[in-house]
């Protein structure tokens, strides 16, 4: 099919003074494959776009080369324009003659502009169409974990009409959500019973995910329960496997006494304190209480929020003296600032100290010795009860599940989200999400955010039951592929698998849905069997040939 490329030069409303567009246009006319050259001043506006559409139709162009501003801005809309002219959106090649040519250099840059357009034309000749097809997706979600976050996600997604499977490795559902839920007044029990009654949700206790294959919209997951394996299909997978809470033994490095060592009874966790508060009648009320915050781990808000909440409760119920030893109380969680102010007003004393206090015991009472920054001197407080700082550690199953799903862990062992700001709950593997403490989130406010963003993400993806996807933009030629597994090992998004092809033999197959179009597999394939439609080797080499 003969290449007929239309070259559209945009002088950005006349702003690109150091490019002689007529010269550029005349240079383009003689190039093989160029059917017409048009200079316009505002390709980003509708009239110019309509003219382009009519040019494409009248001159039945099968390639469009646009020399204008950066493709980062205009590639997407221009593709829509080309499509509305009946030509495949991928038959577009752009030259950046504004930011990277006219604005980047002083003086006349017509020569460079000519070269950039020639490069774009050389690539345009080799472009091939990429069809966008509609693909059915499973309207079901696998939620791994039985805690507070998992059950919440399950309920919300079930409400959106998706079929949910809640896989919980321990015997009872909602077990590891106790600590988090109970402290912040959420009754985990009622959530679990709601989940069990919801006909869209299937709760599988003491079950384990064994293998995960396929990609977003079409995951095949084997779950093993009571010795037998079941294969299930899911559109998305949410990991909410929670975390392990340990009492921090952070003490001053040279202080000999360990928390746990002293008396034992008068050192408690936040949870044990809440339990004692709930039955005020029994036992003697402690006269003075101390909390520890931000010494073992400054990155989680877990102990800060629990401390603020419980310090207030102690003041109300027991009215005992409350000291909070802290490095600095970080109140950037939801409602934390209000709790902090209220605690101060209620007489809770915050002792700011640069290093962890020295803990010793003196006939049953806990002596807390620390340097108070505000007073500028060492103070010692004798207290009846010490609430140790709690620190979140990854659940031991995190690493194993991570490798089954092909997702990464961060340096502390929690799941590594794709981008902490843009995609906080998504993994690098499309369709696999993390929620809650399993990715290091430590306070209820943030966990609630995680839950709502994951629910929105998945509803957006799956509720319609179908997704538009570019089919075979990155494709493995099964003739050339020798199944050497290099691409499967290398793909950072676990989007390539060995699958039987019509020839019968198993070959590498790129999942259109799961592929992030980065091209790493294309560069590393020893047999050059993988093609990435818009960035093929011949297209890149053609651009190099066109230079100079």
């Amino acid at each position: 099919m003969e290449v007929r490329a239309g070259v559209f030069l945009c002088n950005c409303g006349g702003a690109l003074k150091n490019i002689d567009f007529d010269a550029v246009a005349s240079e383009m006319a003689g190039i093989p494959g160029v059917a017409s050259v048009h200079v316009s001043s505002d390709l980003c506006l509708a009239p110019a776009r309509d003219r382009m559409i009519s040019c494409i139709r009248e001159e039945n162009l099968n390639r469009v080369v646009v020399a204008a501003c950066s493709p980062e801005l205009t590639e997407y809309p221009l593709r829509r324009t080309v499509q509305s002219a009946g030509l495949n959106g991928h038959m577009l090649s752009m030259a950046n003659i504004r930011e990277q040519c006219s604005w980047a250099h002083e003086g006349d840059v017509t020569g460079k502009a000519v070269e950039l357009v020639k490069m774009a034309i050389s690539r345009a000749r080799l472009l091939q169409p990429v069809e966008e097809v509609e693909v059915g997706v499973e309207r079901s979600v696998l939620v791994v974990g039985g805690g507070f976050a998992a059950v919440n996600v399950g309920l919300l997604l079930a409400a959106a009409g998706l079929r949910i499977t809640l896989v919980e490795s321990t015997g009872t559902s909602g077990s590891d959500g106790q600590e988090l839920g109970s402290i912040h007044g959420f009754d985990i029990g009622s959530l679990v019973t709601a989940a069990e009654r919801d006909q869209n949700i299937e709760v599988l206790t003491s079950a384990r995910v064994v293998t995960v294959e396929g990609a977003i919209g079409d995951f095949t997951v084997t779950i093993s329960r009571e010795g037998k394996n079941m294969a299930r299909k899911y559109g998305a997978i949410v990991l909410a496997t929670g975390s392990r809470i340990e009492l921090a033994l952070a003490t001053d490095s040279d202080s000999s006494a360990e928390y746990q060592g002293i008396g034992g009874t008068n050192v408690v966790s936040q949870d044990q304190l809440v339990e004692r508060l709930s039955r005020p009648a029994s036992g003697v009320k402690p006269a003075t209480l101390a909390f520890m915050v931000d010494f073992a781990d400054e990155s989680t808000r877990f102990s800060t929020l629990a401390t603020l909440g419980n310090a207030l409760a102690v003041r109300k119920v027991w009215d005992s003296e409350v000291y909070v030893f802290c490095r600095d109380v970080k109140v950037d969680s939801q409602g934390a600032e209000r709790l902090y102010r209220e605690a101060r007003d209620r007489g809770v004393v915050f002792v700011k100290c640069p290093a962890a206090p020295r803990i010793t015991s003196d006939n049953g009472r806990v002596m807390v010795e620390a340097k108070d920054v505000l007073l500028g001197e060492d103070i010692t407080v004798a207290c009846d009860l010490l609430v140790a700082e709690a620190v979140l550690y990854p659940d031991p199953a995190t690493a194993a599940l991570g490798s089954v799903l092909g997702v990464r862990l961060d340096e502390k062992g929690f799941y590594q989200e794709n981008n902490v700001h843009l995609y906080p709950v998504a993994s690098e593997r499309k369709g696999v999400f993390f929620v809650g403490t399993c990715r290091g989130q430590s306070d209820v406010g943030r966990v609630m955010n995680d839950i709502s963003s994951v629910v929105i993400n998945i509803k957006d993806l799956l509720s319609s039951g179908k997704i538009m996807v570019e089919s075979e933009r990155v494709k493995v030629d099964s003739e050339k592929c020798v199944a050497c597994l290099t691409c499967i090992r290398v793909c950072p998004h676990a989007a390539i698998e060995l699958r039987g092809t019509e020839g019968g033999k198993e070959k590498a197959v790129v999942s259109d849905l799961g592929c992030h179009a980065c091209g790493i597999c294309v560069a590393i394939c020893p047999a050059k069997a993988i093609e990435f439609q818009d960035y093929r080797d011949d297209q890149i080499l053609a651009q190099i040939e066109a230079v100079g």
Partner: protein
Amino acid sequence: MIIAERKPIAEITRALAPYKNVLVAGCGTCVAVCWAGGEKEVGVLASQLRLARGAEGSQISIMETTVERQCEKEMVTDLKDRMAEVDAVLSLACGAGVQTMAEIFDDKPVFPAVNTTFIGRPEREGMWVEMCGACGDCYLDRTGGVCPVVRCAKGLMNGPCGGTRKGGKCEIDPDKDCAWVLIYRRLEKQNRLDLMREYCAPKNFRAVKRPGRVQAGKA
């Protein structure tokens, strides 16, 4: 699979010095998978040769091709109509491929561009290790599936030697495991250590009368 490693460029340029039109022929099977002699490596080597000649100010014209399997006479013969204007052939195949090429086009000099090293497997991405020495008399049944003939530096049949390093590493290379320690651990795990205790008589090193020949039963 067969593992190979690209020869240093100096050796290749020295061999090609007198020739102007060179056919650079890759092989699409083993040497491609171990990144030594496939289509990609043909492109890189051709480019490197052109750059080298450019630097010396003399010209070279290179034809690039990749044969699916260079050890198949028919596949190599397919190149014959392009051989007219070729002065010399540079083959990136393993030894079998280079010699097939040399045999089919015996009127033209054929040079190897890779060193065929061993039969092995990928240990991790980009690194391959020797597993089998094709000795023709396999003992893997006696050693729990670890071959001492090639994975022990001295090929001992009653190992280990006295030079094993701390932690069970090989005498000559602290990064390599002593094959006999691996054998010991494997057999211990399966509690079949009696296999290792059994005296192994001197090996028949002529099991394959070199050069080897295997005649399959009539098809």
